[in-house]
């Protein structure tokens, strides 16, 4: 089989896989909503147990019982998620929300990790590219240098063997 035919086969295989995934994705996404469970995991219990409202397991915990009732009532009243969360934050303080909001200073909490990751990723790529260019230039300059050739051979020997490379 020639290279173009093999390439064609691979393209077809990828197409089949994507199609299969799309078919599976389209099957049965019709269950009823469970906002109580979702919101219960975005709010904290205020009894100082430091647990999510949906996971507070203290029998007779006054706070979680009251919060759950309020949450049920708010959902029944047709309030949006944002309205419910805002109402809880107003009543119990910002610490009732299990995660920072996406507004004001709180936004920094969400942005900083991704910004740091992106900056570090970019920095690493640039660093490696700079090293690669430097290496090419050095290699070109020292192609006929016996010491450099010997060093390169030593590195090749060390890195090609299967004798190392684990923890």
């Amino acid at each position, binding site marked *: 089989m020639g290279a173009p035919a093999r390439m064609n086969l691979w393209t077809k295989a990828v197409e089949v*896989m994507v199609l*299969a*995934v799309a078919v*599976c*994705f389209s*099957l049965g*996404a*019709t*269950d*009823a*909503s*469970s906002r109580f469970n979702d919101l219960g*995991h975005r709010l*904290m219990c205020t009894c100082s*147990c*430091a*647990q*999510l409202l949906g*996971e*507070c*397991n*203290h*029998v*007779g915990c006054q706070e979680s019982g009251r919060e759950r009732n309020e949450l049920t009532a708010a959902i029944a009243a047709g309030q949006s998620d944002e309205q419910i969360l805002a109402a809880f934050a107003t009543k119990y*303080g*910002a*610490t*009732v*929300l*299990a*995660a*920072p909001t996406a507004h*004001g*200073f*709180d936004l920094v*909490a*969400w942005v*900083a*990790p*991704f910004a*740091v*990751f992106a900056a*570090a*990723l970019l920095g*690493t790529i640039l660093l*490696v*590219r700079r*090293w690669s260019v430097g*290496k090419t230039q050095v290699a070109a300059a020292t192609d006929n240098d016996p010491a450099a050739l010997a060093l390169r051979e030593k*590195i*090749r020997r*060390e*890195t*090609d063997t*299967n*004798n*190392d*490379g*684990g*923890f």
Partner: protein
Amino acid sequence: MATFGSLSLLIALALAAYNLLAGAVALRLLATGQPARIQPERLADTARRAGIAGFVAVTAAAFALVWSVFANDFSITYIMEHSNRDLPGAYKFSALWSGQEGSLLLWAWLLAVYGFVLRLTHKTDVRLYAYAGTILAAVQVFFLAILNFAAPPFSLMKGTIPEDGNGLNPLLQYPEMVIHPPLLYLGYVGFTIPFAFALGALMMRYPGEKWIKITRVWTLVTWLFLTCGIFLGMHWAYAVLGWGGYWGWDPVENASFMPWLTGTAFLHSVMMQEKKGMMKSWNVWLIFSTFLLTLLGTLLTRAGLVSSVHAFAQSSIGNWFVAFMVIVLVVCIFTYVLQRRHLKSEHHLESLVSRESSFLFNNLVLLTACFVILWGTLFPILSEYAQGSKVTVGAPFYNRVAVPIGLFLLLLTGVGPLLPWRATSIKSIRRNFILPIVALWATVIVCLAVGVRPWKDGSFDSGNFYALVAFAMSASVFAAIVMEFLRGGAVIAKQTGRNLLVATWMLTRRNTRRYGGYIIHIGVVIVVVGLAGAAFNRNVEKEMALGDKLEIGPYTLESIGGTQDTNPNYDSWYAVLDVSRGGKKQFQMTPEKRVYHASGQPQTMVAIHSTPSWDLYVVYEGANPDTGQPIIKAFLNPLVGWIWAGVALMFFGTIVALVPSQKPAAQKGGQ
């Protein structure tokens, strides 16, 4: 015994201080070659011996505290607050680390044990060990100073001595609590050793990479302790806290996870230094950071800076830790700036797509994960400072931010070993990546077909989506690693004529570091599969009168009554539940609720029936105060058993990686 303990701590402090001062003077004399009355080698040896004697003194103090617990000496405040007469023996022992002063004593004792081993094996490299021993002594002086002046474990009660103590926190009265904290501490404290070697090697401009080889074993063992400690903590949280989960992104958990991440990064990047003389500065700073993170973790949880569900011992020693961390940081920066020329890389990377760069990216992701956790842990403090009010940074934040990073790391776990050193050709990428990619897509299709879909209740669900991605990537990484084993095994099978299984074992024996590492990676994959199962957890809560039934998944739980028990330590109430599946009775579960006599605190003891598919996890939450009927909460937690199995494999892989490689017969004969 209190006087003996206090005196032992004072002597230990004096010995550690002598070790530090005499060691520093001797090393200075050796470095400068200045003439002195005493031979610097002899002075250094007296410092080493003082370190060994210090171990005896700290051991005596720890013994005194344990003895006092067993002797019910309630004249000692610490014993009164953390023990009682009827506390079982094993938990009396664990009272040593159940409070602030005791856990600091445990820290000092473990440091003394590590130092003792280090000082006994000093002949490996006398000068380097002298540096490391002196740095260890400096750390020991800090802990012993706290124990002597800020948090003395032997301080005496004022006024009347009570007949009985307050007892141990019920949360800590669980078998794993007897081993989880010491293992975690062995991990925390153990990172002081590679830190001491790294700083010492930098101070003395140590030639070559021998110090890396010496440190590797220490680091790997320490990492293993920390790994086991973290996972035992997870299991304890799962079995005792009764909320159905094992990781809540609590500051205490985060504090243990951060040094684990940087330590893991160090274990990977150190290979680059060994093999190619690269990333020297990076490695030094990784180990410095790891050590500082162990201190920061202690500061965060002990000083009450952040609230935690299981910071059992808080006090005002925060200032001591802040001061010590500043000193450590200044010493590290100063030494680095002074000696940085010594850390110049010998080689550079040749290609963006190579094994070397995969290590670099692996480090990048691990450190980003560490930053995310640190950021999330500290953000409430930052928020309070910036806008005057605290916010909560809980599981939803970490699940959104840390999970994608974790999945990227998993991807690198699979990709890294498939990339050759130096540079990669398109041909080799195609050859190495076909099987993993096929495994990935096949898993996606199978998962979607069996109902693992990225939506729940009609809308997109990030938990389900991440689970699907995690399953697919895990399959891919698993395929990649198995392929590596089989490829090598096939070559050896051809050479030796043995079958593939034996040949793969021989391959592992010939390069234990590499293949032990791969076994650890398979363990990580299995853990990830187990963690991904959490997306499909279910739970039902019901008040159950006699004969009432509760259904969850394929199981039906029927209440057949309750029973009570009492012992000198606590009273218990059990709910007795028959569990049937498909109409047939399978087994019985007896979740328990305890109330401890000494403290009067209640505690749940969860009943767990574990299978490879899921855990049936049942909590007796207590009796409804109005009706008197028991309230039962049942969870069906898929794949949790995989987490513990994965950890066991990680443990095995680490042991394999620690065993020296066996040389092939031909090579042996040639020597």
